């Protein structure tokens, strides 16, 4: 009996909580807010020499598929990437919308057929930051909020509007 009463009171308490507009607002934020937040948990970063701050998904895909060779100001594009990390997989799936193994195979095809140059592969976030800072025209990606704009590095905005 006590157990039943306890369950009933718990349910009543929860309903009251949900009726509270603050709690409901918080609940909705969690449900609808977390998903876009997680999709944006990756920052696209580039060498400060690049004369653009905004890329479309199509442009980002063309860059990372090694199809686009130069930035608008003529600097050659150097792609910096991680290999098979969770961050790389998320970047491929969420931002490029390409299977990571398909992207890798495409890089290998370009490299070994001699048609282009493969991306520079780095192992750590620190190496990524160093590569981006030191190679004019370099572009890569990092965990969200890993880096702030500086003299040699800047964040790029993805905008398909």
């Amino acid at each position, binding site marked *: 009996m006590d157990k039943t009463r306890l369950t009933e009171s718990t349910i009543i308490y929860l309903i009251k909580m949900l009726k509270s507009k603050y709690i409901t607002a918080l609940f909705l934020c969690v449900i609808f807010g977390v998903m876009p937040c997680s999709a944006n948990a990756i920052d696209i970063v580039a060498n400060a020499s690049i004369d653009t701050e905004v890329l479309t*998904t*199509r*442009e980002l*895909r*063309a860059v990372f*598929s090694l*199809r*686009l*060779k*130069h930035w608008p100001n*003529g600097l*050659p594009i150097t792609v910096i990437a991680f*290999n*098979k990390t969770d961050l790389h997989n998320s970047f491929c799936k969420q931002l*490029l*919308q*390409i*299977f*990571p*193994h*398909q992207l890798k*195979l*495409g890089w*290998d*095809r370009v*490299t*070994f*057929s*001699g*048609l*282009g*140059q*493969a991306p*520079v*592969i*780095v*192992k*750590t976030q*620190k*190496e990524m930051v*160093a*590569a981006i*800072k*030191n*190679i004019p025209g370099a572009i890569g990606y990092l965990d969200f909020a890993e880096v702030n704009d500086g003299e040699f590095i800047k964040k790029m905005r993805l905008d398909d509007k």
Partner: protein
Amino acid sequence: MINRIAGLNKTVKITINMRVVSNLIYKVNCKGFVLGAIYNKSKQIILLLLTLTTFSTNCLAEDFFSNVRFDGYISQSFIHTTDNNFFGKSDDDISLDFTEIELLLSTTFLRNFQFSGSLLSRHAGESDNGDIRLDHGFITYTAFNNIDWSIGARVGRIKAPHGFYNETRDVAFTRPGILAPQSMYLERYRNWMFAADGVEFFTSRNWSTDSLSLRLLYSNKDPDSEVVEEFLSAFPINIAPNGKNGKTGVAKLLYDHDTGKIRLGLSYGFMSYDIDNSAIGLQDTQMSSSAVFLSGEYNTQNWKFVGEYAPIKVKVSDLPGGFPDQNKDGLSYYLQTTYRINPQFELFLRRGVLLYDKDDKHGEMLAQITGAPAHSFYAKNWVIGTGWYFSDSLLFRLEYSDIEGTGWVPSKDYAQSVKTGSLKKDWEMVMFQASYRF
């Protein structure tokens, strides 16, 4: 500067080091003795170095060598067959005679130019002796490149874009098994299929997730004597393998849909040459062949389905020894399905078929004409294999093939099998390969 890049990987470090190398080569080149010193080594290595040094003039050296990248791989295979030798003495034994080592170099310069070259040592039984050679070496000029279009041209020794795999057939990481499917990418015809000294025009149109590309390659280089020798091995005649009037061309259209989930290819390749019989006072033999490659691939997260179908035409006329002119329609195809269990492991199943004459599926008519066994004019196999991507750089593969026919056995292994009496129509093959890339 050096401290700031200390954390970067080897590629970036090489970039910096190559600036020093570029200055060194420039200085050496000015003194004019570098080419002479290495002249006797190999003509092919010289071609590569000549191309490099030609571009290392004072104004270009820094640009040319500042973006140098090195890539490469080394592969070692272990091959066992129940009958018929394949890449060495594999019959009832284990052959270690299939080793591939390749070093690739690429660099960009003058904004729109790229040089790409590779040195390859390939030991494949008696067919390839492991000598270092310039596998490919070409300059790409991209005349126009934006998000929609890319247009340009290449000149040099260019990899021929037959089908999906010809260009990267030697690279374990890009082919779908230990060997590229033998029904289509025959090892015995590798040397004439692989690369051509000539020019190529390319263009591609890109959309958001799709792309369409066109490549047109032409070469008028005469075939090497090994290529002619390989062709002549199908006939019991003994003439000098001197090819002339060589012409090779490839046209390839490739459509990539939904960021590579579907890939469709259509390529047409031809090759023709004459065999000079003037030494024996006979008319030249004419050989021409052409093939259409229809290629398709469908990818999901874990599955890959790939198939290629190629009708082949071969025409031979004026063969010495009273052989009738040949005009054969051959056929080759394969279908493969690969399942990725996880990012490290994959399993595949492949069916491959090669017919020298599709109207003579069991080779009986060709056997009557040439006197060679009927099973040497076709081959069919089932292959089951697995790949283990131990790390980003290390790949292990294990495969089992059940084969009927000897149509794709390299001619020198075939001759060895005839000599030792191990030539059989039905045979099995087990291969293991370790491949490391750097």
